[in-house]
């Protein structure tokens, strides 16, 4: 049997077309995904909103507003390590964690000019803020001039300033209802800081990243394309399809050993190609698999066997030439990948909708099962969901092998 494994491996590796679908295509698609998703990932990152602020007056409302600005933002002067003493709240300004990147000017005209003059910058100002009657007024650039990220920045700026206005409104209410409370230093301190009324608890092992799911779906598709290996290898084993198959059938090696050796060789090729794709995603593209590399390899191993079984099942369809069988496999893989959400956000939403509405369809979609298996090792702290997906994949593998067993067992034919 070893000789069958050895030479089937060599033959498959040297056969043009095999590595194109099982290795080159997934790597190229991964690279395309990297290019496609880099802008989305950038948008998802927390960005500091650049804003111009007309320096508040030195009265009590101005000092309070300045203190608030010091809380939520940083300025060029902060980065330089000093500014005028009125704006120095003594806090540890961290430009990376600040919501606002503030540039101070003295007049509203200056603010407007600065915003307009920097509209074409890589990161323009989203608008300016001026304090009137103790409350901030926000002016943002029009929707027609704003990019998508600027629109998000405008919303962030409005939310931040609304929070300040609401706090000032609360202070006014407190002064009217209970002036003594304002003499309590604890109350004053609480008014000066942002309220933390919710506690953040992480449910998953890692922060979910929207784009990572596409790479999981890609691995599902890449695995299923491994079925083409099974189709090619088994065509060369059947006497009624190739003269090579006939010659092998009259050999003294038992048929079961020939079939087993061929299937093992197909699995090795498929698994190796998937491992290369996985390594590319893991170490070059730096996709987060939750540090579960061993579990990922288990998924890849079973996915390779599933793909080989799928190839065997398609190969056993009678009266269809090899090209036709490869066409069937391509159709099955593309269709399954569609419902695994591979082809962009709308198909991912479709996949999610199907998962919710008709979960049974997920159970019979091998691409979805492989994709969800990777999802489960990345985000769940329990192996239970993974085991569920692996079990379903094992059942699918068994069913595909059962479908092809009649064809695989056959040694003698009515006609050649």
């Amino acid at each position, binding site marked *: 049997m070893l*000789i069958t494994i050895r*030479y089937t491996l*060599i*033959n498959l590796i*040297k*056969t043009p077309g095999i590595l194109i679908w099982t290795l080159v295509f997934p790597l190229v698609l991964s690279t395309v995904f990297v290019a496609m998703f880099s802008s989305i990932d950038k948008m998802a990152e927390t960005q500091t909103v650049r804003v111009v602020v007309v320096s508040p007056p030195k009265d009590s409302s101005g000092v309070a507003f300045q203190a608030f600005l010091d809380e939520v933002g940083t300025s060029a002067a902060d980065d330089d390590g000093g500014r005028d003493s009125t704006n120095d709240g003594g806090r540890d300004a961290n430009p990376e964690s600040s919501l606002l990147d503030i540039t101070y000017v003295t007049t509203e005209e200056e603010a407007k000019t600065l915003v307009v003059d920097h509209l074409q910058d890589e990161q323009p100002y989203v608008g300016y803020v001026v304090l009137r009657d103790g409350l901030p007024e926000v002016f943002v650039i029009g929707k027609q001039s704003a990019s998508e990220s600027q629109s998000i920045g405008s919303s962030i700026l409005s939310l931040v300033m609304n929070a300040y206005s609401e706090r000032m409104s609360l202070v006014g209410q407190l002064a009217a209802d209970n002036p003594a409370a304002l003499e309590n230093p604890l109350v004053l301190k609480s008014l000066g800081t942002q309220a933390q009324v919710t506690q953040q608890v992480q449910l998953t092992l890692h922060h979910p990243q929207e784009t990572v799911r596409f790479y999981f779906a890609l691995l599902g598709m890449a695995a299923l394309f491994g079925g083409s290996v099974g189709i090619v290898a088994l065509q*060369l084993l059947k*006497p009624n399809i*190739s*003269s*090579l198959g*006939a*010659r*092998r*059938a*009259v*050999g*003294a*090696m*038992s*048929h079961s050993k020939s079939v087993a050796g061929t299937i093992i060789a197909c699995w090795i090729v498929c698994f190796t190609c998937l491992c290369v794709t996985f390594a590319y995603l893991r170490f070059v593209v730096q996709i987060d698999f939750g540090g579960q590399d061993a579990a990922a390899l288990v998924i890849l191993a079973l996915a390779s066997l599933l793909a080989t079984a799928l190839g065997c099942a398609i190969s056993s369809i009678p009266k269809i030439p090899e090209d036709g069988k490869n066409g069937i496999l391509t159709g099955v893989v593309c269709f399954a990948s569609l419902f695994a959400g591979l082809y962009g956000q709308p198909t991912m939403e479709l996949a999610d909708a199907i998962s919710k509405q008709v979960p049974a369809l997920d159970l019979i979609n091998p691409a979805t099962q492989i994709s969800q298996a990777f999802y489960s090792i990345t985000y769940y702290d329990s192996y239970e969901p993974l085991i569920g997906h692996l079990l379903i994949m094992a059942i699918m593998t068994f069913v595909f092998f059962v479908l092809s067993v009649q064809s695989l067992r056959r*040694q*003698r*034919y*009515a*006609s*050649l």
Partner: protein
Amino acid sequence: MEEMVLVKNLVKRYDDVIALDHFSLDIASGEIFGLLGPNGSGKTTAINCILQLLSYDKGEIKLFGQPMTQTSYDIKRRIGVVPQNVAVFESLTVKENIDYFCGLYVTDKRERKRLVLEAMEFVGLEDYERARPKKLSGGLLRRLNIACGIAHKPQLIFFDEPTVAVDPQSRASILVGIQQMNAQGATIVYTSHYMEEVEQICTRVMIMDKGKTLACGTSEELKVLVHAGEKITIEANVSQAALMRIQSLDHVISAKINEGRLEVTCENAEHNVADVLAELSKAKIRPGRIWAEPPTLQDVFLEITGRELRD
């Protein structure tokens, strides 16, 4: 002598077409047995049934005295097959191909290595061991096809038209090789369309058509069966009167003048040439060069199977 192949009353149908009609065959150890027949006569079907690649409706097949089945691996171990179409892995080298097919029969690695080298030497492919099949000429490819079938030193070898599309040098080399294998003890079953090859190497010949055996025996035995005997060709200016007298001779089937040559076809008889020359002498015609050819296997084949074109 041990009976290597025994086929009794084999019947094989493709729907309404009878491919083998109570076909029987027995081949003894040490023979080079020729299987002749026109296209579609059932030669390859018979071999495929014997090798258990094709199912059959009725009949008995025994190889080495034992019933042949799909799982008779002990019997298969003693058989070599050289198929009509070149059946090798396109992506493997010459040496890898021979090693693989030898490996279907021989598990010992060291033994296999020796056999592979011997097979390459036997067919003259030592200089091409790293070449891929697509880089080989038609003749070399046929030799590779043979090497893959005989590397494990089988006792019974089926050659299905091994010299198709091969140059005369390669053909001669292949035929000599087959005779050598036979001399070393292998029994050969050989199918071909080339009558002269079969006549040259086969110890016994079977002519079959439409799934039935029409004749079986040595070349000489088969030639006796046919009506046509010698073909006599004489360079001479023969008159119409002399030609008519020659045509009326006993044992003369036909006589005609073609491009200044007298061509006479005779039945098998002892003094055909002398009788024709005597008639020429009577007519005072002096002959030039004279050729007399005995009947060939092709004459036998065409007379038995007919001259009409086949599909």
